[in-house]
């Protein structure tokens, strides 16, 4: 097939275009205490944040690499080849007119302006390491919702940031949360006041555009008592042939009776390491929902977690992973039932194709004092060919006998009868595969805002093209 070698070179990636790097400030590659201090100084941060960063840097240097997941791939990461900070335009803009032309051009091709016209609750479009465009719709402002990029959040609301930053995911949690804490840049800061319901999903786009450009965004969402928000994050990254590291940290805090839903579709190009720590704390009767889709990247290690800290709180983790050629998706969920009468649902669906590997890694913990808990875990894997691999690593730690737990797991293959049936309705083999795969992911897709669902279905259909038979 023509174009195969070209597609191979860019990692078979649809959005594999990139604008010329337009960085005004760019650090040399590699990490040192001085680089960390320079980042903090350049951003004009308060001393306490500099201290947090420096301490985290030393943690990072001291901590070993995880000895699970995919060690071979992890050990290929060359931390000295990563650029840890890059600012692509001067400061943060709210007005679309002020966004540089080549950046707009890229966004145009990703369809972002239309998305905004339609129904954005506010946009943070992260270009390289910092948000260049940040708009908050008036109704959000009127409701008292704070929605800023994290750097601005620190400047304008230092007392809130200081109170919550790193409380859900401390730097010492793992090597990559330590790294993020040391060099974080960008991400979102959101505070929803008591009783406020943000009706529209709030969205942000993250991309990687510079060669060897690490992305270390840091997101903190605090939903005060009885409030609710749906935050949507979608990633599409242009491709390069050298490795890229994406290591974000996302902390969610749902106060009593609050509800946070955090939806992600990541579609990093096939050279990106996507090593993300996501965790939320749910206080009494609060709900935290992670809707997490992993389609791209070389290696993803991501296990959205919920600490059910308050009585009657609820966790929902719905995730999908697609592993194609050369990809390993090591994803799953962690739920810790720390209080009585807490409930959780975990649904994980994964697809492996062309020798890809998808792993479910899950942790379900019920502490001795957490009486009357209920949890249901369902993991389904779909194998599209015999070369691909799927594995499951579920861990359960149950500290009392009153828990009501269900666990279901299945591995299935696409049957010839299904293919024959769909093909007899005029669908080519690739189209038939696309339908089956989209159907398999449907319990996830239906949770997404419409345009994400449509785009995800299209991406999966593209993935099924040209590689069968």
């Amino acid at each position, binding site marked *: 097939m023509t174009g195969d070698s070209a597609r191979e070179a860019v990692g078979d990636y649809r959005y594999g275009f990139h604008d010329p790097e337009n960085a005004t400030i760019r650090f040399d590659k590699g990490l040192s205490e001085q680089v960390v201090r320079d980042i903090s100084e350049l951003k004009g941060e308060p001393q306490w944040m500099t201290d947090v960063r420096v301490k985290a840097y030393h943690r990072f240097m001291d901590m070993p690499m995880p000895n699970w997941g995919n060690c071979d791939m992890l050990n290929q990461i060359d931390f000295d080849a990563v650029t840890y900070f890059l600012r692509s335009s001067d400061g943060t803009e709210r007005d679309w007119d002020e966004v540089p032309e080549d950046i707009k051009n890229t966004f145009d091709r990703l369809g972002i302006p239309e998305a905004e016209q339609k129904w954005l609750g506010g946009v943070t479009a992260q270009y390289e390491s910092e948000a260049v465009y940040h708009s908050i719709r008036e109704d959000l402002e009127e409701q008292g919702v704070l929605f800023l990029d994290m750097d601005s959040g620190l400047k304008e609301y230092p007392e809130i940031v200081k109170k919550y930053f790193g409380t859900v995911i401390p730097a010492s949690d793992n090597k990559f949360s330590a790294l993020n804490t040391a060099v974080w840049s960008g991400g979102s800061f959101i505070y929803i006041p008591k009783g406020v319901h943000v009706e529209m999903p709030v969205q942000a786009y993250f991309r990687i555009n510079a060669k060897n450009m690490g992305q270390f965004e840091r997101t903190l969402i605090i939903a005060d008592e009885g409030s609710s928000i749906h935050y949507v994050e979608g990633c599409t990254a242009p491709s390069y042939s050298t490795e890229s590291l994406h290591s974000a940290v996302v902390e969610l805090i749902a106060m009593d009776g609050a509800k946070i839903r955090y939806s992600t579709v990541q579609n990093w190009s096939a050279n990106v390491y996507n090593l993300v720590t996501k965790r939320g704390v749910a206080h009494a009767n609060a709900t935290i929902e992670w809707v997490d889709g992993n389609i791209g990247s070389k290696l993803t290690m991501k296990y959205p977690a919920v600490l059910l800290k308050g009585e009657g709180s609820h966790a929902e983790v719905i995730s999908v992973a697609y592993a194609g050629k050369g990809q390993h998706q090591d994803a799953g969920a962690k739920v810790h039932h720390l209080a009585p009468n807490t409930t959780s649902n975990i649904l994980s669906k994964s697809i492996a194709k062309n020798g890809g590997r998808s792993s479910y890694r899950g942790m379900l913990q019920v502490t001795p004092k957490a009486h009357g808990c209920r949890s249901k875990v369902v993991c389904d894997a779909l194998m599209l060919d015999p070369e691909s691999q799927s594995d499951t690593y579920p861990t359960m730690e149950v500290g009392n006998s009153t828990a009501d737990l269900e666990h279901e797991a299945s591995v299935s293959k696409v049957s010839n009868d299904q293919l024959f049936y769909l093909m*007899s*309705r005029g*669908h080519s083999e690739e189209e038939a595969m696309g*339908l089956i795969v989209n159907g398999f992911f449907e319990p996830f897709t239906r949770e997404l805002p419409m345009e994400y669902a449509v785009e995800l279905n299209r991406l999966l259909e593209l993935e099924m093209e040209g590689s069968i038979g």
Partner: protein
Amino acid sequence: MLSIDNLHVSVEDTEIIKGLSLKINIGEVHAIMGRNGSGKSTLASVVMGHPAYQITSGSIIFKGKPLEDLEVFERARAGMFLSFQYPSSIPGVQVGTFLRKSVAAVRGENAPSAREFRKELKVHMEALEMDKSFLSRYVNDGFSGGEKKRLEILQMLLLNPTLALLDETDSGLDIDALRVVSEGINSITPTAGCLLITHYQRLLEHVKPDYVHVMIDGKIVKTGGPELAIELESKGYDWLEA
């Protein structure tokens, strides 16, 4: 339109169809009757192109083209339709989406606009006494036998084939379902050729065949008119065996 000549078919070295010839023209209804294992269903699957079956000799010509040149989906796009005895379920794919995509795939440039499609859908679903709620269910997932068969006939009406292969579409249907399904079949026969594969005469009370063929051990052993079906009902197949 369809011309089968001295067809031999094997699955994993076992010969199932052993020299079968048959011609079907537009406007004709052919019924194939026979016992279980006589090769009736295999015939329908082979004509549609199921990959498990090997054609070892003979030929199938559809609209002047040898079928071996056409993949399954190309046969569908060329106007062939198979109503499955056991339709597969496709979890997560809604009936409405599936029908829209299938109509677009099969009818191509002549596919109706979204509005026309909804109109056609409404007319056919009413005729088949199907509730709107069908459209948001997953394809054949948790369907009763009768629901599956109605969905097959709905697809046939929407895809508007020139050759309809109906594999035991009458099995598992109650009297009311048999009536509406038969009306569906009758509505396409003026512009299509139709091959009905059935065990029982009762479908043929509703859909009048022009020809009735009896299949035994991979071959057509007798061909007659509608009266042959009635004769089979009372006499069985033994008298036709050599």
